[in-house]
């Protein structure tokens, strides 16, 4: 059977004109006209400033923007580089835009970028979001340098977070990945990542799970696949991640469905790797991380608790099919506490997540429903976390999180046991 032809003729023609490159920077877009020019400028300046001799190309897979985004990308240029740099670029700057086939989705855009990197023989391939307000040219250096020159295959980001920002990552994704995969990767759903050419080629060849990972799940897939595949992984400090508009941000339900669901699916696909993985490694980190304590994110803790409390009560028949009786009783008990006394202990939370993961694996109930049932439980955890750490400084919060991560590691045998048990 002939292999699928998914790159358009026009795109291939543009790539042919560009020829062999050292660096590909991917910028997937969809109706980002208002924000994309700034991002393109930062990328171009970054490439000229930090990689003046390398052959590079900025590729913009677009999902069919109607607001002139691709025109804005093509038009964005630094008219006089001498205003921002010491000299003008040595090489021609290439910017290629093309519509990608299929429905709008991160995985389709990424597939196009993998194909372009493979076709052009790129040594490093970085991905950037089109709505970033905080991107600087230094981001390009931080992401590409380890892949291009230091021999790493996967470069994940580290963002400078506000307190209570990214709680889903800190309470679920990061510690579970650390416990299962044995890598201390800060941002497993980082949208600004870089790959080596060979890892990009590997992802291009392995598209069998493409449809399993919608939206941000695609990045999670890349992160875990790199770890499970034995590729060299590192991370680089970028800075605060500020996007132009919250409109594009996911609501919590969708976020949990996408990222927690993707993570559970990743655990399934990689079970032969993590079930036997014993050690936990530090991931090499590049860049300087300031200790600056940013203002905390506002979260309505009381509302979170109320939704948890009522949710646990209402969803009892559902949770009975997911959690063990002991865990469910413990959660039910804390859901009945007064709001100010409420605590969702680390071990209970970690155990809950492990049981959710195992139940997902066994398809205890419809998987979408299982993930939706996780949402109110997670709200409870968030409420408790904020209550406990409301006045703590960033260092103390970090200590608490480290303790949580160790709890997950301690519960790994429990996870494995539940994972491997026969269906009830």
């Amino acid at each position, binding site marked *: 059977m002939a292999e699928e032809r998914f790159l358009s003729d026009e795109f291939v023609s543009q790539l042919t004109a560009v*020829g062999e490159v050292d660096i590909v920077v991917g910028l997937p877009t969809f109706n980002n006209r208002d924000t994309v020019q700034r991002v393109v400028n930062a990328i171009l300046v970054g490439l000229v400033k930090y990689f003046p001799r390398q052959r590079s190309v900025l590729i913009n897979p677009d999902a069919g923007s109607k607001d002139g985004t691709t025109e804005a990308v093509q038009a964005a240029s630094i008219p006089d580089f001498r205003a921002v740099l010491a*000299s003008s670029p*040595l090489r021609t700057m290439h910017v290629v835009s093309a519509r990608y086939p299929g429905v709008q989705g991160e995985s389709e855009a990424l597939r196009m970028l993998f194909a372009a990197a493979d076709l052009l023989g790129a040594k490093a391939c970085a991905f950037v979001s089109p709505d970033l307000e905080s991107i600087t040219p230094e981001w390009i250096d931080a992401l590409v340098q380890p892949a291009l020159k230091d021999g790493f295959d996967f470069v994940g980001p580290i963002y400078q977070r506000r307190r209570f920002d990214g709680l889903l990552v800190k309470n679920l994704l990061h510690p579970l990945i650390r416990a299962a995969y044995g890598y201390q990767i800060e941002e497993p759903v980082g949208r600004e990542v870089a790959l080596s050419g060979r890892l990009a080629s590997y992802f291009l060849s392995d598209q069998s799970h493409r449809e399993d990972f919608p939206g941000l799940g695609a990045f999670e897939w890349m992160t875990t696949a790199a770890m499970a595949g034995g590729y060299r992984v590192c991370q680089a400090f970028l800075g605060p991640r500020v996007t132009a508009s919250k409109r594009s941000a996911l609501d919590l339900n969708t976020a949990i469905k996408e990222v927690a669901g993707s993570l559970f699916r990743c655990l399934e696909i990689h079970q032969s790797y993590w079930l036997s993985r014993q050690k936990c490694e530090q991931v090499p980190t590049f860049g300087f991380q300031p200790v600056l304590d940013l203002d905390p994110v506002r979260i309505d803790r009381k509302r979170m608790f109320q939704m948890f409390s009522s949710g646990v009560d209402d969803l009892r028949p559902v949770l009975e099919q997911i959690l063990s009786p002991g865990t469910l009783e413990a959660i039910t008990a804390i859901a009945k506490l007064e709001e100010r006394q409420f605590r969702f202990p680390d071990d209970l939370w970690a155990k809950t997540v492990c049981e959710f993961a195992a139940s997902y694996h066994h398809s205890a109930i419809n998987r979408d429903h299982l993930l939706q049932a996780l949402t109110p439980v997670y709200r409870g955890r968030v409420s408790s976390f904020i209550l406990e750490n409301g006045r703590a400084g960033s260092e103390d919060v970090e200590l608490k999180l480290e303790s949580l991560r160790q709890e997950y590691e301690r519960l790994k045998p429990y996870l494995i046991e539940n994972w491997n048990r026969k269906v009830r």
Partner: protein
Amino acid sequence: MRTTSSSPDSPSGMPAPGADPLWYKDAVIYELHARAFHDSNGDGIGDFPGLLQKLDYVQDLGVTTIWLLPFYPSPLKDDGYDISDYTGINPAYGTLENFREFLEQAHRRNLRVITELVINHTSDQHPWFQEARSSPDNPRRDWYVWSNTDDRYRGVRIIFKDSELSNWTWDPISKAYYWHRFFSHQPDLNFDNPAVVEEIWKVMQFWADMGVDGFRVDAVPYLVEREGTSCENLPETHDVVKFLRRRLNEKYPMIFLLAEANQWPADVRHYFGDGDEFQMAFHFPLMPRMFMGVKLEDRKPIMDILQQTPDIPETCQWGIFLRNHDELTLEMVSDVERDYMYDMYALDAGARLNLGIRRRLAPLMDGDRRRLELMNGMLMSLPGSPVLYYGDEIGMGDNIFLGDRNGVRTPMQWSGGWNAGFSAADPERLYLPLLSNPVYGYQTVNVEAQRRTDHSLWSWMKKLIQVRKSTRAFSRGGIEFLQPRNHRVFAYIRTLGNDRVLVVNNLSRSAQPVELDLRAFEGYIPVEMFGGNPFPRIGRLPYLMTLPPYGFYWFRMRRL
């Protein structure tokens, strides 16, 4: 001795001398040093009688103009650019009579001759300076630039920074500082003194009367100094040039002036004036960018500098070159570009000198025949009069261990025999040792061997020059850049009236496809100029072409 036709159209197809005051626009200039070309008397130093013996060779190559490096009496501390007598011939190279005879024979072969006019400075051995330094009251005192302190003209850059620490040097005899922009043994003349200007005019007259066809004026930007400035490109300098040009026009309208001004194109533009200063000026910034473009495999540096080059008066012309007797200068590039050039072309620090690279063309191209052809192809097809440095037509090498820039000034390699056929003297007596390594040594690279075969570099260069001269679109035409999507391909159209030439260069080491937008030439038939083969007619669709590694095409666009 060969006689030449005196008909208006010489065998080369170029107009006979004297017919066209803009003859320099069509010139293909061959730069050489009498000392390095051929030795007739066995003293190990090339001379004018020896050069005369090789005029047939020069004519056969196809060049139209010889540019002679300084041959005047000199202590030779700067290879003749430190002149101690403006109206003499260095005895090592011959006599004035020898020079006259050489000039006459060159003209008979339709070869023009331009000489050096090194007027910014003299040798400190020049009688003028000897007199000037003898006493503050000497009439020639003011012929040079003196100061009691070295504070004047503070901040002015030092050009030979590898060997000089200051632009001022203390003269113990006259107990004062004298100004010099180059070596300390080359005191600058004071062009604020009308007597100096007059004297220089007399020097020009001397050579013009002898029959010289042009002057290459060395170090033009530095003629005049003013406090609080960079002492370069000052309005007063242009006034001096305008004056000399006016005089020249009145008496010798066929003689042209060529400026050596290592500046950005916008600054060099001023040296053309309104057609009342220099007729020609070297395009220094273009040269390193051609080298950069080939290494980067990207037309961007070349295109950028050409697009920044301002228009010049109709009577004026750029002089373009790849290499010359000096180091490959990297003054007119950014720090990033300079670092890149060093890393790509002069990894050996011994090859670096004075913000430049002291290597010949062939070693810079790693002896790659294809790259040599590509570079020369661009030289012969870009706007301007091309200047070919002696020895580059056979791919001569260099010797960076010879000190200063002597590594690119070694004797011409005529044959694989005694002293490469350059001189009958003992090899130890040669003014500089011959190259003898297996790659570039005279046994391997020499004129005699290359003239025997049609496929040698020399034969190819001869053909290249011949094809270039077959149309004036190259020498006098305008240029329009094509910008195909493939940035590795550098393509342009040269146009003069109805004469159109399409030039397509592949700057990459790998074969390249390119689609050219030639809709404006729909219906034309491109005829490849080296083989004479017609290519498919141009239609409305993009014209697809494939080029071999470092390949290039010249197409005459025929409408039939």
